[in-house]
């Protein structure tokens, strides 16, 4: 006889009553296999890679190391839960200038003083990455979550497996520390392994996300929790 439990989870603002859960099931397993939320990735199952990162209430954790049955009564936020719907509409967004976001990035390199030279200097490339980044930013939907948008526009994605975890880690970073130093940024993503990019474009994405988040003040308090 395999005894099981019934548990109730709250994920991305929705209640999920679950039946016949084995007591040892991880939150990651439940998210992926029972709820179909496959954004959180399963790689190491020992907290080494960070690709399953989620927020438990306000805390960034590896969902593979959370017992699902112990997540009752806690708000779980996955990468699917930090969607653009959390963002104010464009008209409500108070932008510091009338120029669209990313405009300065479209300008010729060198013509705009960069606020984030330290971060940016971690990626030295003869390719005009700022121009490409700006173009890609224009091509991403403005109502997309700014951190996700930054990852897409900065080309911080190769195979993409680590990206959801990194998006969660960077979102968490910027909510607590809107202007991270390079060291802050490095420490914040030290639990997220990327085996493709070499992290250069990821740091570029963090810099871009920092700018985008500045123009989206509501980001720091996801709407679910504000309700």
């Amino acid at each position, binding site marked *: 006889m395999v005894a099981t439990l019934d548990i109730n989870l709250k994920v991305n603002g929705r209640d999920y009553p679950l039946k016949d859960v084995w*007591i040892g099931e991880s939150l990651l397993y439940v998210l992926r296999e029972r709820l179909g939320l496959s954004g959180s990735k399963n790689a190491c199952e*020992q907290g080494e890679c960070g690709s399953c*990162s989620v927020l438990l209430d306000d805390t960034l954790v*590896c969902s593979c*190391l959370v*017992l699902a049955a112990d997540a009752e009564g806690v708000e779980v936020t996955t990468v699917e839960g930090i969607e653009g719907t959390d963002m104010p509409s464009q008209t409500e967004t108070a932008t510091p200038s009338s120029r669209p976001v990313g405009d300065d990035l479209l300008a010729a390199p060198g013509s705009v003083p960069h606020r984030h030279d330290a971060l940016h200097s971690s990626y030295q490339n003869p390719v005009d990455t700022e121009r490409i980044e700006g173009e890609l930013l224009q091509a991403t939907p403005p109502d997309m979550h700014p951190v996700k948008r930054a990852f897409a526009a900065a080309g911080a994605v190769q195979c993409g497996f680590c990206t959801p975890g990194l998006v969660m880690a960077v979102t968490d970073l910027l909510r607590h520390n809107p202007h991270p130093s390079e060291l802050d940024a490095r*420490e914040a993503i030290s639990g997220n392994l990327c085996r493709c990019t070499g992290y250069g474009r990821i740091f570029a994405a963090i810099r871009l996300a920092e700018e985008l988040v500045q123009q989206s003040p509501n980001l720091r308090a996801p709407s679910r929790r504000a309700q």
Partner: protein
Amino acid sequence: MVMSINRPTSLEEALQILADNPEMEILGGGTDFMVEVNYGHRRPVSILSLSRIAELRDFEVSGSELYLGSGITFSKLVAPPLAELVPGLAQAARTVGSPQIRNAGTIGGNLATASPAGDTLPILLALDARVEISSLNSVRSLRINEFITGPKQTVLQPQELITGIRVPLHDSSQEFLKVGTRNAMVISVATVALVIDWDSYRVGCGLGSVGPGPMEALEAERWLAAKIDWGNRRIPLEESALRSFSELVARAARPIDDHRSTAEYRRHAVAVCARRALERASHAYE
């Protein structure tokens, strides 16, 4: 047996449950527990979760003692006010895993797992901290090296729970150094913790990953305590002193060869870390 998870909200309730069901497996932050479950090394049947016991996450300063609830996470140790009260413990906690791991893992869990590589164990030993263990009808408190008896072995009985850690709050210099293959997310190859207690003229030196549990470098402690100019707060820094201290520290290590390092490298690493700990402790006063 009925499969169950129990999530009490008070310590008293938890101890009652444990008294009635000593076979229950205790779940703290989950960063060790769940790895074992995920890899099939642990098949839990009944679990006592500590996640909802708020009092285990509290700390309290009373007189010259800090009481740390066993459920305090590494993240909480890294930040003020705890980082200011016990900077050496904060340094050690900051080397644990990653932000995600530090947000979940607890100091009580580090003790309960009793890994030879447990990062907070050498500094707790050097600080002369005591582990407080409670059952329904008793409380006992032990030094770290009385509590840990071997690799992943402790004196904890089935009805007992680690409830807290008592750390003396003295005017002291505290340093923690860790060697691993990278800075983040790494299990230590060797660690050295040094505490120079200016109030009680005591030196504490704890070593990690170089023995079956956290090791006390007793000879090195005695030697350094005799060399320090306590009145003028002067730590001996001449080359011969640094060498003698690091040699004595290395001699206290009982390292083994394993997949993470060789015994020889570990002994070398603790010697280098001991020397740097002494230098750093001294620079903190300049």
